[in-house]
């Protein structure tokens, strides 16, 4: 296996990880500030992708589609927060799980009701399509490079938002002490709606970005949601930095495991059994990673509280 191939796979792992980060950042933010576990986060990812596909279909503009994804998911998030979620903050996790599970059912079938059962079309814009040759002779799709860059920019923006702005101060205050932000005279209801909408927008953006190279269809959000959970568990709940590190770890483990485990197995057994067993092991790799992190650090790599 050549170095070029390995380098390319590392890039792929990074790109996958960055997209997971967009999902996980929203989830972890929402948990950190409001203490809410949101299973419907995957639905917001789907909403973003569908908004983008619908707008791209109508206007032909990918940028407009991204804007629509951000706006649509944020709007859906804000509405859901105001109608349902805010009744759940004081409830235990169990009620939150059930209510957001119910939201998944409503979102999924509602989307199918509006858009039909067939997958929608969303494509990479022409200026980002095709491969580019990187130093070292790696031919790599421009769009995936753009995803990595976009994801890193969002991570940077999120960092600036939280460390430099007024909303950010309120968010940090909310993570540390919920009573305190009330004492500071912050409108908590509004802050919560904003944070939830922000998390939703991040998920929606991820949905749209990924939707362009995958399939925009009902149910696309849940597998990503579960991976995002794994990311958060590894990174530590409430920690944006943890979400970033966790996402990259999961992305790399998932991608490289899928390549190297079957190769590794070939050293021990005949090829077709090796590919099959290696693939089975690879599908479990991230969960084994999660278990290992848990044994060493039960609150995740950057988790402050249990």
């Amino acid at each position, binding site marked *: 296996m050549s170095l070029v191939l390995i380098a390319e796979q590392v890039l792929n792992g990074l790109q996958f990880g960055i997209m997971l980060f967009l999902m996980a950042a929203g989830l972890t933010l929402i948990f950190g500030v409001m203490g809410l576990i949101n299973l419907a986060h995957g639905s917001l990812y789907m909403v973003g992708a569908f908004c983008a596909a619908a707008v791209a279909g109508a206007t032909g503009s990918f940028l407009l589609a991204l804007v629509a994804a951000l706006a649509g998911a944020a709007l859906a998030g804000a509405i859901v927060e105001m109608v349902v979620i805010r009744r759940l903050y004081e409830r235990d996790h169990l009620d939150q799980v059930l209510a957001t599970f119910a939201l998944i059912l409503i979102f999924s079938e509602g989307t199918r009701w509006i858009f039909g059962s067939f997958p929608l079309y969303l494509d990479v814009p022409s200026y980002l*399509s095709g491969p580019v040759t990187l130093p070292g002779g790696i031919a790599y799709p421009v769009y995936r490079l753009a995803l990595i860059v976009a994801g890193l920019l969002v991570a940077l923006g999120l960092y600036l938002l939280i460390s430099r702005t007024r909303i950010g101060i309120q968010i940090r205050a909310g993570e540390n002490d919920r009573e305190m932000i009330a004492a500071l005279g912050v409108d908590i209801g509004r802050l919560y709606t904003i944070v939830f909408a922000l998390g939703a927008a991040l998920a929606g953006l991820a949905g749209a970005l990924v939707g362009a190279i*995958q*399939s925009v269809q*009902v149910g696309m959000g849940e597998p990503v949601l579960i991976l995002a959970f794994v990311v958060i568990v590894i990174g530590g709940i409430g920690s944006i930095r943890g979400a970033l590190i966790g996402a990259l770890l999961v992305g790399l483990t998932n991608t490289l495991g899928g*390549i190297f485990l*079957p190769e590794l197995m070939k050293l021990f057994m005949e*090829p077709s059994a090796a590919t099959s067993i290696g693939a089975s092991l690879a599908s479990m790799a991230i969960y084994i990673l999660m278990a290992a992190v848990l044994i060493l650090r039960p609150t995740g790599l950057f988790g402050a509280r249990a």
Partner: protein
Amino acid sequence: MLKSLAAAASMLAILSGTAMAEPVKVGMITTLSGGGASLGVDTRDGFMLAVKQAGNEDLEVVIEDDQRKPDIAVQLADKMVQSDKVDVLTGIVWSNLAMAVVPSVTAQGKFYLSTNAAPSALAGKGCTPNYFSVSYQNDNLHEAAGAYAKDAGFKNSFILAPNYPAGKDSLAGFKRFYEGELAGEIYTKLGQTDYAAELAQIRASGADSIFFFLPGGMGISFLKQYADSGIDLPVVGPAFSFDQNILQAVGDAALGVKNTSQWNKDIDNETNKAFVESFQAEYDRLPSLYAAQGFDTANLLLSAMAKADVSDADAFRAALEEADFKSVRDKFKFGPNHHPIQDIYVREVVKEGDVYTNRIIGTALADRADAYAEECKM
């Protein structure tokens, strides 16, 4: 006119007590909600189109949604057998659901006509007299892809499929007729949506062609990412990833790809032309492979009803075996294991106006039965 004739015929039948008066109740279990709903919806619409056109009032259809869950499918089958007292079941899209339902309903003396799923277990050792596959045997389209790869002179194919039984059958089917080397053989995760890693391997492998079987959303993702990767190799696959109901979501990425199918909308016969036209008129979209299979299944059933009473199982089975109906396919007959013997075509994805669709460019396998027929003892 046709309908009133049928009504008159059935009146007559009731009065005279002839064989035609025997009503047949069909239970259709298919996927109408959740992720895979588009396939079930097409199956149902194709089937019901034929039922509507026939206007046979002796045929009653009960339709239920299996949500793509095996336990729900089993429960529905129990309900249809025990409560609705159906004579014939049909409609299941997925092999795993078929494996859950078919053995038990046929053991209870009911007929099962498969509109799609046809796992090898039901074609070989596990074949049963009351089970008929109207679509194909699961391996057929993969075999045809292998045959096409051989004919096209591919020497070093890279092949991939999800890591589940149908995926393994698929690669095995491809290799049955393909004669070149393999540049690589990969099993991906079921439900995987990102193929960057696999594409990198393909690029590095020095392959001269690609065969893939990735049904549903997986195929859409793969093709879009393939198109964007800059790899430029001939791609071939079974019809599932190029079917009418998902081609629009793949878009340009699919153009020019070769795929294998036992049906296409441009098969040149009267039945097929009428089917495509009436399907479009009725539902305002092009029919898919699943719609065509549903349509044929209903017509097969109607043809048997015209010949025998369903209560006389042996006679009804014989009538089904004759397959005396006008198929949308050019040739259709059953082999000894109740699976079709038919031509399997190579299609190419093209754009007609704004719509992506397929056209036939050749025949990959003529009069193909299946690899398991010899194992079937019945």
